[in-house]
């Protein structure tokens, strides 16, 4: 699929490309070229649907990996157009002019990752209400620590056993039995 498509994309700097099966591919472009590529793919190459905008937090590289998943009308090809966006407040342009459903995807990106979206009409609370902590999907947000700080956990039952302890004891018993058997054999 990429072999046929890539020669037609003149002037785009393809940083990375992966093909997964015959019908699925991912290409990565610099953020500056993202929207011209999306527009071109929608207009002239039949990728008319934006299915989702996925975001993965690559904290160690300091970037968000954004993937705009596009589909053709016949749904015979899926193309993920990717770009890397700086983690520290780099803004993203809105894709609403191209696809209206981008509105909710971007609201979610804004809320869950704290990505500022420029040109978006309705950023605000989406799933959370009055959240003031780190945006929860960022890697540095530790959900377990947050839970321990915010909620009280119920103590275990009195007869609650530590599973790991039980497994360890069982293993030791087995080892001891095996050693004893070996000792007998010797």
């Amino acid at each position, binding site marked *: 699929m990429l072999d046929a498509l890539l020669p037609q994309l003149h002037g785009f700097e393809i940083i990375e490309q*992966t093909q*997964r*099966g015959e*019908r*699925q591919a*991912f290409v990565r472009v610099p953020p500056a070229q993202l929207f011209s590529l999306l527009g071109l793919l929608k207009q002239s190459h039949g990728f*008319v*649907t*934006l*299915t*989702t905008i*996925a*975001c*993965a*937090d*690559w904290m160690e590289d300091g970037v968000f*990996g954004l*993937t705009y*998943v596009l*589909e053709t*009308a*016949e*749904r*015979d090809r*899926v193309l*993920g157009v990717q770009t890397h966006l700086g983690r520290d407040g780099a803004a993203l342009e809105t894709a609403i002019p191209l*696809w*209206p*459903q981008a*509105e*909710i995807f971007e609201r979610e990106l804004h809320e*869950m990752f704290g990505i500022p979206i420029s040109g978006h009409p309705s950023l605000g*609370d*989406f*799933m*959370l*209400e009055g959240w003031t902590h780190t945006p*929860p*999907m960022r*890697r540095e*947000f530790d*959900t*377990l620590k947050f839970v321990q700080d915010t909620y009280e956990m119920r103590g275990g039952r009195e007869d609650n056993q530590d599973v790991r302890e039980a497994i360890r004891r069982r293993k030791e018993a087995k080892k001891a039995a095996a050693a004893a058997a070996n000792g007998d054999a010797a």
Partner: protein
Amino acid sequence: MNETIKIFHGPQHPGVTGNMSLELDLDGETIVKATTHVGYLHRGFEKLIERRTVIQAFTIVCRICVPEPDPNEENFARGIETLAGLEISERAKYIRVLILELARLQAHYLWLAGQGGSIGHGIVPQWAVGERDYILDLFEEITGGRVYHMYIYPGGVKRDLPDGLLTRLSDLLNELDKRLPEYDRVFFDNTVVKKRLQGVGVVNRAEAITNGYSGPVIRGCGIARDVRRDMPYLAYDQLEFEIPIQTDGDAYARALVRRAEMYQSIRILRQVIEQMPPTGEIQCKLPKHRKFIIPKGETFVQTESARGAYSYYMAGDGSEFLRRLQVRGPSLVHAFTLLEPLLIGAQLSDVALIMVSLGICPPEIER
């Protein structure tokens, strides 16, 4: 002099399809503005999956969508298989198709109950939920769970089918097939039902594809789009079935699409019973679960659920945890991009039936 009244339709309201809320501005009984509010069921699945190994995550993915959990399991399993390069056996593929189609069938029964309830039709919910329970009983026999199955496992399925299950399934299908025409008489051909559903919630065909609608919504406006046909997964390319379409785009068209899909599911299940290899591996060899490393890479998997195309974006980073799993259920777009404009000009009493007919499922919107 027109004064608008603002009412909150939900979250505590019997007329919403789950725990979500619609903020409606009304002029009399006519809606002039609708805003969807979600987040009442947000559990942060995507965050939880980042901290769980593959096998641990497998137990929670099915809980993302309650009325039809199995497409989640299938997506997750298939994504892991693609990333880790696992091949599943022919028999496992057929068993998965069987589970997915049964799930679709029960989801359609549940929809039928909801659609009946939303227009005040008391008989259909009683019948449909009762008959759905026969399917749940089969599920319980196969997987051990009525609603959450945790059965479709990366690399195959969790355990083999019980003895004689296919015979019982076949009997059940005959029974359901025999009873389905009763629903035509009481529901689909019912004048009152037609009056309520026809011409309500008409979806604009021109924007259906670009806006990413799917499932009965898009097939109800005349576009035969179905992942099972467009991008066949599992054994769907070896099975014969039709993709029913209707051209009106209203709630009644979607009802007819779902009704035809119930027959198609029964047809697929009958073929599965015939074509399934009688013996064979059901589970390929997996790495030890503590050492189950997902290679660096990403994939996008899609499954056709009863409500539309259900997709996962998954990225692995070479550790035993997934770096990212993004869930994109069909109702995410339906509940916002589609529903908000669709409700303008609709009557207050039609809100519930429009929501049910679009198949909006809040837990998958909010994860």
